[in-house]
């Protein structure tokens, strides 16, 4: 299942639908990096509001996406992790270490705008 990615000014917004298979995640990783390169984006928001589980593979893939995007000089923010999902994740020791997180899309855009306002 392909994840829809929209462009919003200098940023890209990827909205994950409910259940992502491992293959979908790998596809997403590939697609995000290509899009960042293609559109010369400064930042990416990955909205996981609709994800009701986050397992270690998903978490690792998201971390890899953030690292790869950083190598292109862009910033990634994961938004929309639900309270129940966050709780389950920390109990399993899945932490999304090193990745910026925000409450929702609005907060994510706010973060990116601040980051890039200071650098212009």
């Amino acid at each position: 299942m392909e994840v829809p990615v929209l462009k919003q000014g200098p940023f890209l917004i990827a909205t994950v639908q409910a259940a992502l298979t491992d293959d979908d995640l790998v596809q997403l990783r590939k697609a995000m990096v290509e899009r960042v390169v293609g559109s010369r984006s400064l930042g990416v928001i990955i909205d996981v509001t609709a994800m009701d589980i986050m397992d270690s593979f998903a978490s690792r893939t998201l971390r890899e996406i953030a690292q790869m995007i950083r190598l292109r000089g862009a910033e990634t923010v994961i938004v929309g992790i639900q309270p129940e999902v966050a709780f389950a994740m920390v109990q399993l020791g899945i932490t999304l270490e090193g990745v910026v997180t925000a409450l929702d899309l609005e907060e994510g855009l706010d973060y990116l705008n601040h980051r890039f306002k200071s650098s212009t």
Partner: protein
Amino acid sequence: MAKDAERLERSGLQHHSPEPPAPDGPALLLRELVSHLRQNRTQLREEWARRITEAQLLTAMSKDEIFAEATAVYDQYVEALETGTFEALQAYARSLSERIIPRGVETHEVVGIVLLLRDVLARSLFAKYQADFRKLDRILDAYEPAANRIANTVAVGFVQERERVIRQQQEAIRELSTPVLQVRERLLILPIIGVIDPQRARQLTEQLLRGIRTNRAKVVVIDITGVAAMDATVANHLVQTVEASRLLGATVIVTGLSPEIAQTLVTIGVDLGKMNTVGDLQGGIEQAERLLGYKVVPISAGGS
């Protein structure tokens, strides 16, 4: 055990057969027993009340109250003996418990008074049938199982009601003791007081995460000044709370760590780089305000 079951069956309390009772059969004996208890109601009830006072039970209640409840219990008792059904008694036991538990009446008092009533009634039966030992024997066959079941029903009803009240109170305490308070836009405070066990820690985390989402909080100050001690399990819960909050985009500042808790955290090897801590609540709020971009300035005196 088998003998008791046999007795119960013989006493006719399990069945309500419409056939005419056999002379001196269990059903007839039961009727005789019940009418004796009804006829002598006044003096038996008084005897019972006297023995309750003598045994220093129900001291939390006034004489009038004891009398009123004693009357109701006596009548219910005889009724249960007569009908062999215990639903009415169960319902009464529950409503009685609801009334007397807030008055501080204890389990041993309730069991005590019911057993005293059983004794008072048994003694009066001994007195009445002392001349005819065989008849007394059969009367007791009818009386004893029922009397024991009554004592059981009342005691269990009382204990169950107590347990229900305790559960209710525990729930209320849990809810009251973990308030998540918004003190500024985007700033929540979670003051924790008292003992944290793993269950409370879990409830706390769930409440906080929901609060972060509802209030769109960016900073949370968790104050543990009021927490005396924390074991490694609970300390880990605290670390998890901090991490889970971060996943929702909120920064957590922990304030008020006692020396003992600081020791625990260091000993269990908590990665202190992950935990933002400040000495006291005031300092924590000040840092939170800085993070949010607030600066608190005094209103200048003598200005316009």
